[in-house]
């Protein structure tokens, strides 16, 4: 499995990278939505994106909308990992095509649990 970690904080990317590497994922990283899209257009298409909401250049919500607009990326699973925690934001993200949503702060178990809910790691 390949995970792309999209967050403007290096420290947060590092935390997420360690969690998914422990699950044997290969990882790539991007510091905002546009950088992630560029990588995907260049052929680095992951199985799952862990994507922050508030980022410079292109935020995670826009990123999700862009990914969902491209039928070639139908199989990419999208998981928001963000401090945005209003019910309305979660509803918006899901409606735009996010499959799962983890609220920051999180413990590693929360990420593992959600990835296994999505069938990406054995329960």
């Amino acid at each position, binding site marked *: 499995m390949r995970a792309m970690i999209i967050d403007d904080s*290096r*420290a947060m990317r590092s935390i997420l990278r360690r969690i998914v590497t422990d699950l044997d994922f290969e990882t790539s990283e991007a510091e905002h939505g546009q950088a992630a899209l560029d990588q995907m257009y260049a052929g680095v298409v992951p199985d799952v994106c862990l994507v922050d909401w508030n*980022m410079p250049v292109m935020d995670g919500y826009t990123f999700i909308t862009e990914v969902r607009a491209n039928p070639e990326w139908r199989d990419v699973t999208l998981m928001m990992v963000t401090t*945005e925690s209003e019910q309305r934001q979660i509803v918006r993200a899901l409606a735009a095509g996010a499959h799962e949503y983890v609220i920051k702060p999180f413990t590693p178990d929360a990420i593992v649990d959600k990835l296994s809910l999505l069938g990406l790691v054995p329960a």
Partner: protein
Amino acid sequence: MSAVVPEVEVPASEDVLAVTEDVWMALLGDDAPLLPRTVAPGAPFDVAAWSAATTISGGWQGVVTVELDEALARRLTMRMLALPADEQASDSDVADAVGELVNMVGGNVKSLMPGPSVLSLPAVAAGRAAFSSDSALACRVDLVWQDAPVRVSVHVPQEGPR
């Protein structure tokens, strides 16, 4: 706590404390507790520090600021980046980690206030936080973790929301 225009809704310090504890627990685990620290009202943060702020605007206006002791900021950064003990976190690493810290606290504070609002990207500085003169302190939480002080404060516009 300084005077606040009465009509402005402010977060409860109990909530700000709980949010901070959740963030702390997630980043640093529970090997050492975050303890309350008694500080005179109005006293500026008293140690060599890093500070980070994020602005909430929309249905509610406010600024959430985290200030922390230099050594603590570096430990937090080492922990988040999982750097080996013999390595040093660079200033840019610290700025990044402290920025993410205020992002998490700020986002959760935002969710407790009337919305919809947006959260700005964090602004981080080495040194104490500077607060604008047209804002008033709404809530302040002083804590200490393994002898290192941390402060979370929330400011609201002096005039109330426009």
